[in-house]
């Protein structure tokens, strides 16, 4: 009896800490290759800053993916959000109104996708693929196909690297992570998200309001992408309708590297954060090594495939038990 118990234990360890182990390995690798430039306070601050947009958007995507869905439109939502914020600032709205306006616009996009998915029973992949194109077009139309540069506000300070401490955006990411972790573990809604993603029929049988949960999950997913868009705006200091193209794939990759299953019912906030960090560290390290962009892309792609392959091995092992 002791042998299988032990292997089950070590497997569970691998499940929980696998992504973290991967992050450590990647960090050690770059630290060994470029000890002088990689290991520094400033570089760590930069890595965290560069993680914030993907990290926050990936929190929302974690909810969507755990509930068994997918949202391909978040990259476009990020672009749209920066444009909405810039336009509101241009009209001399206070910064807080512009910020809330951006996030609200993003959430509305999620509500629209969610309604199409729950009311018309369309496939999330197709609906959000359509929304990806539509929202990108809306952003470009609103901005007149030009970046919009409004006057400086405190929003621009959210992503600036000061002499001391981390940018506000990083703290926002950490705070929101704690909130989502709490939501998933300590609320009925969190349990319902897992139930819907794991087996929708069981959820229905147990009285879970399946449609409402799905709708909310898309609203939250898009809302988090909107907050990511706020930080993107802060980083760029402009509303750019072409920003965030393809970002949705990095966001989904972060969630999947973090151990979530695209078939739903699985995923953690900690894993997602680690997944997002792995993506940034690889990009940062490759730059430090002076590797060309195409090498970075190959490495990132390889990591995604490796993560899914490890997940497959783990799952197959679990089924054999």
């Amino acid at each position, binding site marked *: 009896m002791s042998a299988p118990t032990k292997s*089950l234990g070590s497997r569970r360890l691998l499940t929980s800490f696998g992504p973290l182990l991967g992050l450590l390995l990647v960090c050690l690798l770059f630290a060994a290759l470029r000890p002088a430039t990689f290991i520094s306070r400033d570089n760590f601050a930069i890595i965290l800053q560069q993680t914030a947009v993907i990290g926050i958007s990936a929190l929302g995507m974690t909810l969507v993916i755990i509930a068994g869905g997918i949202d391909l439109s978040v990259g476009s939502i990020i672009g749209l959000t920066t444009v909405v914020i810039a336009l509101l600032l241009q009209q001399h709205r206070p910064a807080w109104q512009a910020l809330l306006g951006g996030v609200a616009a993003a959430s509305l996009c999620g509500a629209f996708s969610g309604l199409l998915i729950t009311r018309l029973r369309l496939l999330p992949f197709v609906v959000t693929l359509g929304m990806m194109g539509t929202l990108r077009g809306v952003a470009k139309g609103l901005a007149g196909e030009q970046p919009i540069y409004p006057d400086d506000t405190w929003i621009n300070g959210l992503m600036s690297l000061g002499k001391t401490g981390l940018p506000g955006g990083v703290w926002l990411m950490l705070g929101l992570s704690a909130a989502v972790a709490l939501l998933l*573990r*300590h*609320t*009925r*809604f*969190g*349990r*319902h998200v*897992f*139930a819907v993603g*794991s*087996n929708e*029929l*069981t*959820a*229905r*049988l*147990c*009285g*879970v*309001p399946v449609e409402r949960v799905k709708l909310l999950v898309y609203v939250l997913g898009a809302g988090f992408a909107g907050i990511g868009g706020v930080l993107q705006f802060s980083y760029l200091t402009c509303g750019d309708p072409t920003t965030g193209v393809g970002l949705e794939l990095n966001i989904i990759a972060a969630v999947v590297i973090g151990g979530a299953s695209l078939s739903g*019912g*699985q995923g953690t906030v900690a894993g997602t954060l680690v997944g997002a960090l792995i993506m940034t560290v690889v990009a940062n390290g490759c730059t430090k090594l002076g590797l060309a962009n195409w090498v970075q892309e190959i490495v990132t792609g390889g990591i995604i495939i490796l993560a899914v392959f490890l997940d497959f091995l783990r799952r197959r092992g*679990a089924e054999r*038990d």
Partner: protein
Amino acid sequence: MPEIAPRLRVSGIRKSFGATAALAGVEFSVAPGEVHALVGENGAGKSTLMKILSGALSPDAGSMELDGRPYAPQDPLEARQAGVVMVHQELAIAPHLTVAQNIVLGAEPTRSGLLRHAAARRAAGEALAQLDRPDIPLDEPAGSLSIAEQQLVEIARALALGCRVLVLDEPTSSLTQADARNLFALVRRLRDQGQSVIYISHFLEEVQALSDRYTVLRDGASVAFGGTAGTNPGELARLMVGRQVDELYARTPRAQGEVLLSVNALAGAKGPVSASLELRRGEVLGIAGLVGAGRSELLRAIFGLDPVRSGSVSVHASAAPGSPGLRWRQGSGFLSEDRKREGLALGLSLESNLTLPGLRPWVRPAALEAETADWIRRLGVRASGPLQAVGLLSGGNQQKIAFGRLLRNGADVLLLDEPTRGVDIGAKQNIYRLIDELACAGKAVLMVSSYLPELMGTCDRIAVMCRGVLGPALPVSEWSEHRIMLAAAGAAA
């Protein structure tokens, strides 16, 4: 009767799954131009036998002969090529392909790799003409036809393949009476053309009217055969049941209280057609009937899982139209017949599965874990702990968790759909005892089962459902398995 060389002869077929013997010696033969009925209760081994005939399974022992030559198909394709074709209860039609494409599917006439459209249409047309239905349009998508016509397309496909033995599995279960009569005419026509037909049906009247000879399967063995002319539905029912109820069951005498669930002329979008019943505190009411009679659909409509068309359901005096969430809050619970697909979220923990219907807005995981650990002990579940994924448990233990969910969430009215499906005999006994205890403790149980001894052994009253209509609930002492069988088959009891 002079012995004609049989088209298909099956002798001494045995098949076991693990320690369970699904088939323990089956013998029968079908002559050319004969309709041979195969009857038996659910679980008697008919589907295993069909899988062996169609090549989906290999027998452990025994042999088969087709037109005097050994017949041992390794896979369904080989069986079809040999000329043994099945038409299942669930039709296998590609709805987007045309009728002609469906008929020649898998045997498309080709010349050097290219499809010969004219030849395909001609073959399809000939097959339909052989069925006396040349009116079915060859170029319409098959999905646009009625169920009865789709079934004809499948039979036409079998003929186009050069079928020698046609196996029809419960062919009338989803047909209207008029369509069923047309099908009978068609089967007789095929017989007169020299086709061998194996006809599997629960409807004993049909068997009586249509078949030339019959074989009865019981507990995996062929226990009786003969000419249909020399028997009657009552005799067949007796042969199908033919066993005794032992001490597996528990039914303590108990007092009944007020009405907890009352259903009035309920009709659902998927079924039932019409059902009324009253269920009292401390009572176990069983619903018998054939697969497809609408029993599960009745429970699902009561619980708000399937849409209700008309009629009313009141739980505890509240007659509000129900969603599953409302039904749980009213104190009823539902046990699904399909544990793996619907009943449990196999990837989630025991704790999540057990507590899902009754969560408060704020969850305290530690408290739920402790509570689940307690239930694991009370239900006697063998598991490593509350956080183990429920899919890793054995079937019997999974069923205990599915059952435990009803108890944990305070259900007074328990709707149980095939509560002992897929569990071994020991776990079954536990479930019977549990049902008895719950009834004694003042719960009300509405139970659907295809296994008659189980209903006879545990229920206070039984009602029989036939083609969507629920009959009167009579005390169990007024029923016999034989009478239930007749009522379920639509024959006068």
